[in-house]
């Protein structure tokens, strides 16, 4: 009991300290208007997680914006795509009194409360890559909507396989919202446009490359008539392509028997595209996505307007539709694969 009392006492003491510290920092903070001491505007860019190549490419864009706009950008996220940890981190950053946050939420609903809090502190909020509608976010920056992307993927594969046959979906996580939204859109698109396409199953890798690989192996084993695979996250298309290439080499599959498309960073799938295993890969430049997000945050923080068709340096014009900002998707093919630097 004594020990616990001691522990609590320490806690109370620390809080007192904190209270003192708070007033003093407030006193100092008033002078520079709540921004950091260097006087630069600071933005927190928060992807879903740290580690995947996709987010690493985005970080480069954010850093570029940091330099171009002469602001300070913090780029950080938990190591796993966990919304509780992500929100903890956003809360911490609100404490740091950043001028704006760019978030790619793991869970659209879960960020609601923390966005509300951020808005009440006059922190600008822009979501990017994944949206959180019905929250206090001001804009959503995306290549297109999840629906558009899903439909595009479905259209690509539908065309490649001639509109009929079995297709399998590979996703990063069965519980991941943007994965669900995209795959649902793809399913709906098949139902509407290619009724003869049958979606046989959806397998999840939990972002584990080896599991994705094993999943792909099991797919071609289980569904000998499989015509196409759509990989809805960065790790899935390369795994599928690797397996298919190996199977072709081993003679168990015919070349081009299975069409593969999906969302993947060009540098990762470069070889597969050159080999023709993947004909078309859908991607957008995550760096540009991040760049635009920082740019918008900076505009908002300075009280400037966001208008449709506005020109963003080193990105180009953007399309603004209500609160949505679209930078457009890219199709990576054999012809243009070498032109990407991410």
């Amino acid at each position, binding site marked *: 009991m004594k020990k616990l009392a*001691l522990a609590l006492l320490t806690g109370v003491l620390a809080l007192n300290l904190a209270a003192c510290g708070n007033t003093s920092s407030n006193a100092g903070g008033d002078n520079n208007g709540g921004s950091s001491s260097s006087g630069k505007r600071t933005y927190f860019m928060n992807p879903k997680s740290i580690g995947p190549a996709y987010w690493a490419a985005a970080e480069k864009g954010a850093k570029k914006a940091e330099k171009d706009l002469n602001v300070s950008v913090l780029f950080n996220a938990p190591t796993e795509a966990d919304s509780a940890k992500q929100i903890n981190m956003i809360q911490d950053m609100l404490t740091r009194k950043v001028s704006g946050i760019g978030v790619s939420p793991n869970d659209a609903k879960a960020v609601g409360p923390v966005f509300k809090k951020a808005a009440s502190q006059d922190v600008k909020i822009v979501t990017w890559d994944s949206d959180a509608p019905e929250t206090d976010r001001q804009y959503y920056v995306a290549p297109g909507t999840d629906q558009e992307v899903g439909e595009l993927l479905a259209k690509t594969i539908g065309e490649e396989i001639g509109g009929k046959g079995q297709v399998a979906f590979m996703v990063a996580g069965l519980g991941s*919202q943007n994965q669900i939204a995209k795959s649902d859109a793809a399913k709906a698109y098949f139902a509407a446009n290619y009724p003869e396409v049958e979606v046989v199953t959806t397998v999840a890798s939990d972002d584990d490359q080896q599991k994705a690989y094993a999943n792909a192996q099991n797919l071609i084993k289980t569904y000998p008539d499989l015509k196409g695979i759509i990989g809805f996250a960065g790790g899935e298309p390369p795994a599928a392509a690797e397996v298919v290439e190996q199977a072709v080499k081993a003679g168990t599959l015919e070349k081009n028997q299975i069409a593969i498309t999906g969302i993947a960073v060009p540098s990762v799938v470069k070889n597969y595209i050159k080999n023709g295993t993947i004909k078309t890969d859908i991607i957008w430049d995550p760096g540009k996505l991040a760049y635009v997000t920082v740019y918008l945050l900076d505009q908002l923080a300075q009280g400037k307007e966001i208008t449709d068709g506005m020109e963003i340096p080193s990105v180009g014009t953007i399309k603004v539709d209500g609160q949505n900002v679209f930078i457009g998707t890219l199709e990576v093919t054999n012809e243009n694969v070498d032109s990407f630097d991410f």
Partner: protein
Amino acid sequence: MSAWTSQFSLKSNKLVVQLVLLIFILVLFSILSPYFLSVTNFMNVLNQMVEVGLIAIPMTMIIISGAMDLSVGSILAFSAVCMGVAFERGINIWVSMGIGLLAGVLCGAVNGYLIARHRMQAIVVTIGMLVMLRGLVYVINEGRPISGFPDSFYFLGQQYIGGVPFNAIFLVVMFLIASFVMKKTRFSTYVYGIGNNEEVVHYSGISVVRIRFILFMLSGLFSALAGVFLMSRLASAEATSGTNIELDVITATLIGGTHIFGGRGSLAGTFVGLLIIVFLRNGLNLLGVSVLYQAVILGALLLLAVGNKKFNGV
């Protein structure tokens, strides 16, 4: 009082080290970051530590009793999703919460039944449950997050009372109750006894099976509670919530001085260990240190804090 606890002399000495470490961290970050030392920040941290903290309570007891429960994260998600699904079916939110808690207790009971009654290895059983329950979560809600709970429910995780988050108050109260239980009641003697020598407790006419069973049920209940609070804080029940939370919980417990082989440890220590972890994370976040290095720092801290102690009997 102090005399009554002093028999675990190893326990009491350790706490001083942890407190020094905690104060060191607090002072360090106060110097390094102008944002660290503020009431809002501290309240934030308290608000964030609740789920790990709630689970750490039974985990400490279970580790003291010489076992381990790795399935807590999956139980958390399972009960949260059960509650969400119940709510979606139109059941009153508080009744749904009861269902969620019940689900957690049931999972704990399954663990307890296999481990206590059939003397199976706790680590193995709970790894199995970890995989199975996480799978069941996907079966139940097909991976879709559940949200749209009434505002009254958000009280649990988002409301502040007198500037202090309600869930943090709840956590502290739980820690005080649990600490009381682990000091003043006979249950504590049994738990420490089982951790030191299970057979003697059995030969003293005390049902070891029942104590172990209760411990795992408690673990289920608290994991479910953590699930409820997480749902309320995030306003959403997700299939992935609580993944790897067991590692955080065990790390906090170990840094708090609980002996990995059982028999020794205290809830006060765990509480301090918890504060060390959350403040460390928070401070590093505020400094903008990438999570990658945070992991390295946490690992090094674990080695330092726990590693320099004597582990006799091995």
